[in-house]
């Protein structure tokens, strides 16, 4: 009958109206500045630099290889390599970036820098509250602002960070094992009597 649909619709909106006062599943609004929902694990916006240990500047994983700078499509990364090696957080000598700037007003959040980095040094952040009254200087982040701890990385991307840690540990174990094997081999060669080297016509394998 004519008007039936309107009555049904009015009943539906009345249910919505009353329901929004007592049924939390109907009123899903999150009042943002006061309450926040944690960012999703797969969220990303701008890159940051991961550091190990407690001193951000010493512990940077970045070795200033500049691959990310070269790969960055909008060219928002600017790196100046340090001239001398400096001790890192465990005292090992490393090259470190003297300057590492990312202009986040240029960055397009493509994550290519993260994918090309062989040292797991640069990762994507989830922080989106970056508004600034200085649109040039304020959005150009230097390495002090970019450096964030591995714990922070674990907090924002738990799964990915554990994978990265496992991979780094495996690599470290491999390097350690190789170093150990090399050292043993060296020791063995040093202990053994050096044999005279075979001299002969080299045969071309053809």
């Amino acid at each position, binding site marked *: 009958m*004519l008007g039936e649909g*309107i009555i049904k619709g009015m009943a539906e*909106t*009345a249910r919505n109206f009353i329901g*929004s006062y007592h049924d939390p599943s109907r009123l899903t*609004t999150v*009042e943002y500045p006061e309450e926040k929902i944690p960012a999703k694990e797969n969220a990303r916006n701008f890159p940051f630099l991961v550091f190990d240990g407690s001193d951000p500047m010493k512990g940077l994983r970045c070795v200033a290889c500049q691959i990310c700078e070269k790969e960055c499509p909008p060219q928002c990364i600017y790196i100046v390599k340090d001239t001398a090696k400096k001790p890192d957080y465990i005292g090992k000598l490393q090259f470190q970036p003297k300057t590492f700037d990312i202009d986040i007003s240029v960055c397009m959040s493509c994550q290519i820098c993260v994918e090309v980095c062989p040292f797991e040094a640069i990762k994507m952040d989830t922080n989106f509250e970056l508004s600034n009254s200085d649109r040039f200087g304020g959005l150009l982040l230097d390495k002090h602002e970019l450096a964030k701890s591995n714990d922070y990385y674990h907090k924002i991307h738990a799964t990915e960070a554990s994978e990265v840690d496992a991979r780094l540990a495996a690599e470290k174990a491999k390097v350690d094992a190789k170093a150990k094997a090399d050292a043993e081999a060296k020791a063995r060669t040093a202990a053994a009597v050096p044999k005279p080297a075979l001299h002969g016509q080299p045969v071309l394998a053809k």
Partner: protein
Amino acid sequence: MIGEFFKGLFLMIWKAATDQPDPKADFLQVLPHAIRPVAAVVLSITPIMIVFPTLFAITTWLERKGLGRIQNRFGPNRVGPCGLFQPVADGLKMLTKEDIVPRSADKVVHFLAPVALLIPTLLAYAVLPCGRNMVPINIDAGILFFFAVGASTELSIFMAGWSSRNKYSLLGAMRAIAQMISYEIPLIISTVTVVMIAGSLSLVEIVSRQEGYIFDLVPRWYVFTPWGLAGFVIFLIASLAESNRSPFDIPEAESEIIAGHLTEYSGFKYALFFLAEYLGMFAMSGLAVTLFLGGWHAPLPFLEWVPSYVWFLAKLVALVCLFIWIRGTVPRLRVDQLLNFAWKFMLPMALINLVVAAVWHFTAPWSFAGAILWRWLLCAVIIAVPYVWLGRALSGDKKLTQRTYRYAD
């Protein structure tokens, strides 16, 4: 002298608040002879100018809150407690905005349109009885006056649309004219039934005819008669269209023509349009209350101690809430649907309602047992059969089927 002045002032406010007749008389005695006529007019106008714009501010808040809840969100909740000061913030925003007039606009008409819209809207309140002794002027042809000034709002909307020199403005104004003229007819015919039964064009007289209670329980409001119920529904639908409210808001359909005749207006002039639109809606609701819902009469005998103007305002706000509810529910009509609905459905139903009113009137002398039931039944059949038949005939054989897309897939 000053003591007498304040005594008269307080006496007047006290008398007005307690529903006593002619509250102005004592106060006017204190004033010099020369300014008495002007003072009397000012005293009549001031409450209207205070109460209804305040109601407008509250309604904008109520509307945004209500629509928000209907759509499962909070609505305004930042300015003041529960967002109550939102209208103040909106007002400040409107008043501080730049007043932009298009270079090619007809400047005089563009300026005059909002003023020419607001004045007749305010004039309509002159005949509305807001309380037992509260009517600015009680003229014998009150309804006629109301519709006469109400009809001139169409002119100012067209002025706005024409003077803006903008295709959207003009289209919106043309739609507004088509819509308002179409719906004015069922609107007036549905009020004619009241005039037929009450035998008077004076709104004060119509309200006094609805006094009293049947069996000391059901008030003798016209809405509790078959013709009154049907008339009330027709009046309500037509007044929605008349005040450009959703679902009849095609003159300012955002999705099609930006904001219709309001497109080229900003700042204070836009605020005036907005104000006039809401004041028009209140005036229409006030008329609906007066004609069908017993005006300022209390709904139950033991509630009569409550001042009459409270009842009038309560009924008015209830109707406004109904309008908000409808706005939150029904989507906008298409232009052809709107005009078809007016001419093919509303007009025949309003005319049939005249017959129902006549039947109700001439069967009044019936005095056999259960006569009231038979009268109700007869009237209900006269109104329901055409309703069902028209509803079916107009919706036709159209069956809702799965829509097939030929090109977009």
